[in-house]
């Protein structure tokens, strides 16, 4: 792939020079969440280190997508806490009380995190270029000319320099998903969340999206990826977490989880998806 970096070298203040006790990029502690009577997340605790790729595996309904969506407050949690970059998500702690954040602060927190959806969710009335630019221009209030210049480079980088003025409906699924990745990156996030980014794609188009994600990982982006692509997990993940029915069954390096699987439940799942 091209040598132009996907993320700016000076973009994210890396954690080396941050407070010692806050080394994790994302910290889940005792997170729980229910939809009505159904508890989808039970006491989830783990960390995602900066510049690392964490792959979340699990059958549908295991809570992995919900967990991902809690990180940027598309869902709210009922118990425990999530910290991104040392900052508590959704609340402010003051005098022993948790105060719900105002919309302004919620938006600011969300901007640190990029998200890529299963169904792309591109804005159909905007061109590829406009999709990439709307966040930085409208939310970050950055200079329009500079944003457009950067957006051109980003689209070039995900291999879509020739589709700049195309509308989403005129693009293939793989192209749309790459635009969606460029759109998230345009916000210069410190963390990227991928919610089954290749599940809605034709098998032939999966590779082009995974290639972009691999490039991103190689450049040191912190990523949480919900996926069923075991090959990708083996190759790219630093850590793998396997969830079932709202709890973490097993976690570790790809080698530990895939080659030295400890739990029968994980083995059953892997036997089915491999």
């Amino acid at each position, binding site marked *: 792939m091209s040598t132009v970096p996907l993320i700016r070298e000076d973009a994210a203040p890396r954690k080396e020079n941050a407070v010692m006790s806050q080394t994790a990029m994302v910290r889940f502690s005792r997170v729980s969440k229910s939809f009505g009577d159904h508890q989808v997340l039970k006491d989830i605790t783990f960390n995602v280190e900066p510049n690392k790729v964490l792959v979340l595996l699990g059958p549908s309904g295991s809570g992995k997508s919900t967990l991902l969506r809690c990180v940027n407050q598309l869902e709210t949690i009922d118990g425990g806490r999530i910290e991104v970059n040392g900052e508590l998500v959704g609340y402010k702690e003051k005098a022993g009380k948790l105060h719900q954040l105002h919309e302004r602060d919620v938006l600011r927190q969300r901007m640190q995190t990029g*998200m890529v959806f299963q169904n792309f969710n591109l*804005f159909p009335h905007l061109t590829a270029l406009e999709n990439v630019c709307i966040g930085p221009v409208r939310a970050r209030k950055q200079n329009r000319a500079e944003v457009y210049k950067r957006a051109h480079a980003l689209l070039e980088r995900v291999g879509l320099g020739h589709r700049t003025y195309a509308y989403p409906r005129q693009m293939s699924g793989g192209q749309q998903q790459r635009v969606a990745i460029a759109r998230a990156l345009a916000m210069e996030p410190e963390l990227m969340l991928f919610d089954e980014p290749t599940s809605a794609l034709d098998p032939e188009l999966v590779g082009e999206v995974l290639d972009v994600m691999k490039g991103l990982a190689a450049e040191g982006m912190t990523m949480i990826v919900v996926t069923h692509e075991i090959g990708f997990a083996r190759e790219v993940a630093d850590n793998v977490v396997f969830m079932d029915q709202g709890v973490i069954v097993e976690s570790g390096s790809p080698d530990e989880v895939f080659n030295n699987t400890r739990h029968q439940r994980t083995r059953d799942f892997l036997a089915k998806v491999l």
Partner: protein
Amino acid sequence: MSSTSTLHEHTRQDDVHLGETKVVRLKHPGRWLAVAVIVLIIAMVIETMFTNPRFRWDIVWSFFLAPQILDGLRVTVTLTVIAMVIGLVLGTIVALMRLSANPVLKAAGFAFVWLVRGIPLLVQLIFWYNISALFPVINIGIPFGGPVFASFNANTVMTAYTAAILGLGLNQAAYMAEIIRGGIQSVDEGQLEAAATLGLGRITTIGRIVLPQAMRVIIPPTGNETITMFKTTSLVSVVAVADLLYSTQLIYARNFQTIPLLIMASLWYLILISALSVGQSYLERYYARGTKRNTPLTMRHHIGRHYGNLRRLMAREQNFPGGRA
């Protein structure tokens, strides 16, 4: 419709040769019968229009550009524009109220729509016109002895024109609220989530993401509403607002040429509504961008296509695009 026309693209060639075998085309005698009936009716209409002296076309044309009529036309157009602007702005607000998470706003929006849609517009117009009978003085302030911020004499404030604007505008807002609400609800939830993850605020999300997409659903019925409103403004003649119809009525009340003058007014309504329809098709085309791989046809293309169909019908009976006859 589109599948039918593509199907017929294939059968439009002048001669079909399937190898050596001669092709005998299917005959459609029923279509010719229908054409004959229509032609007969048109002939009757034309005959009476040209031979019946009571049409008094001279009177139709002599009043067509009369100052009173043009003034009335101006009032009709102005009322339509004002009612539609109120309808769009207030309708959007009411639609957002009805979609709000706040139950009080939700209920208030529902109550507004229920009340305004539930009472005939004619009744509302007469009611607003006579509001001074109920409130001789209109006070704006805190009730139960609180301070009064402004006070109006209802008879001076509520002129016939104000009553007309109020009646038409509120009525339009109620209908537009439902149309806009439907449009907003047609936008996929994922769009809101995508906007949220980009850090876009509520107002930006509504203005830049939701409404532009909802427009595709909102525009066609809004065009119909505008056309309907253009004709509905004629109701204001009951409160003596000098719109196109009322100006016409004033003239035939003096010269008793009721039919020629009503024809004259109808011609004006038809002309302006035709113009509105053309504008509507261009708007629909604009807001359909990005939703289809090919942009839809404009009125000009449609007319061109129908003209083509007509020509083909006259040339060869077999190739009349069927399905709608």
